[in-house]
């Protein structure tokens, strides 16, 4: 078998080496200036822009979240205040009621005590009248008794004597 064509591709040829070196170096040089650098810059810029946009979106989202949390805090505060006010109102109401009750009680007590005093006074007065009436009655009775008993002189003298004795003893 005659192989006119042999495995020639494995032999480095000066001509091909020369042309390949020339063409590839020119390609490398031109492309890095004309194509790869502008593409790199453009892509970098676009990526930066995208990153910036993303960052901004993130920031906006954060701000939104911030605002929302602020709102919530405000709402919460308002709710708390309302609750507080309500509570205070209830307390005030209670205290007013209590005060009123207390006052009423006090008044009542006062009225009662004054009534009691009056009653005591009246009672004492009545008692005193009773006593004085009873004393008068007793005196009248004693007068009548004495008049009856001291109707004789002797008895009068005797009594006088007894009285004197009593005085001496004092």
């Amino acid at each position, binding site marked *: 078998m*005659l192989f*006119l064509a042999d495995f020639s591709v494995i032999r480095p040829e000066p001509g091909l080496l020369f042309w390949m070196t020339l063409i590839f170096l020119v390609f490398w040089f031109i*492309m890095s200036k004309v194509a790869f650098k502008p593409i790199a810059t453009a892509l970098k810029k676009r990526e930066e822009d995208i990153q910036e946009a993303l960052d901004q979106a993130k920031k906006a989202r954060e701000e939104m979240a911030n605002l929302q949390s602020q709102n919530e805090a405000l709402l919460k505060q308002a709710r708390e205040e309302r609750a507080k006010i309500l509570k205070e109102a209830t307390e005030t109401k209670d205290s007013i009621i209590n005060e009123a009750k207390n006052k009423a009680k006090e008044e009542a007590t006062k009225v009662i005590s004054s009534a009691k005093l009056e009653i005591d006074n009246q009672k004492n007065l009545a008692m005193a009248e009773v006593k004085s009436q009873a004393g008068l009655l007793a005196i009248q009775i004693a007068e009548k008794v004495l008049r009856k008993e001291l109707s004789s002189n002797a008895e009068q003298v005797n009594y006088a004597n007894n009285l004197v004795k009593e005085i001496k003893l004092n």
Partner: protein
Amino acid sequence: MVLRYNIFRLFLSFLLSISAITFLAAQEHGATPAPASNTEHHVVDSAGANHSTEMHADVDHNSAHAEGGHEEEPFSPGETALHHIADANSFHIFGDVYMPLPCFLYAPNFGWTIISSTSKFDAHHHGTGTKAIDGYVMEHGEVKRVNDESFPKGEVMIGEFSHVKDTTGGKEKVTSFIEYQGKTYQLDKKTTWDGGLMGGGTTSYYDFSITKNVFTLLLTFFFLIFILTKAAKAYATRPNQAPRGIQGFIEPIYIFIRDEVAKPMIGPKYEKYMPYLLSAFFFILGLNLIGQIPFFPGSANVTGNISITIVLAIITFIIVNLSGNKHYWEHTLWMPGVPSVLKILILTPVEILGIFLKPFTLLLRLFANITAGHIVIISFVSLIFIFGKAGESIGGSTVGAVISVPLTLFMLAIELLVAFLQAFIFTMLSASYIGAAIEEPHHH
């Protein structure tokens, strides 16, 4: 269901039309006898098998001629494949139609010869010329030179080609001869720088022609410049907008190389090396893909030629070693923390070998993958001609086509993947070598 039926019908009609075309072509190829007046290049020399270039060729050539030696050689898929992957001075389009290309030839003992077009060689059949120009002739689309001072300069008509097979040193080597005015002259092949290891060596001339491969290189060069500048312009005219058109093709590749190759492999200083990585990637990818096109502007096996991959690997080698920092050289030449004896005997020699082996494997990988792909595809296509006995049997061709077309389709799909994969691997390994060279020491 309907869709599947349609696809099946499409596939079947595709298969049938391809087979029809192939055996029509094969018929023509087999049936047309070569005109007797044409130069004939397939003269097998059996006697010349032993090392005896003593112009046995002349005798054998004549005897072959006497036997009516215009028999077509049996079809050889190996030779077809080797012929298709090889570089050539004219670009084969179809049949006997070749695209002529200019030649720049330099012989140290003669000087420059510039031939504006290979059509000047006046080839009628198989790209084999009938004229010699300044002692240069064209055989099978390849320019060769008569290394003989007595051969006339200028344009002369030449006679027949003949060949002698030489098997000294266990390697087959075929030498071509031409006949001119009754005398036989030996032809030199162009100089190759393999030091004789691969069957080549320095001969009497150098070929700096625009060959098939250089033509494809230029084509790829202009095509890539066109699409890349277009994309770059689109970025300038439409800043900060979503990619459109050609940008949609360039941008993913750019971002892929940047984010998956350069950044993880090289590190923070990646930007400096981006233009080289991108140039290498786009250039290799472009050449691989153009080589996948099976007809005229494509089909050249450019990245499957070791000269091309050598250039790329040498550039990577230069970049790696120029950007290597102190840490890299220290770890290569005098690894710290290892006994001196070990360093001198094993580590340093291995590391120094490694510096050269890295680009060597880089160039071999690309070369071997692409060449192997081309050879496999051509072998599968050759099935048609093997089964059809090179156009004699239509039934055999049909069977061959039915087997060959799906296999070729499958291989083409695989090769499409390989085209991207090899471009990517070349770029990634270059990046990883650069990354290893500029890596800063880690402080523990």
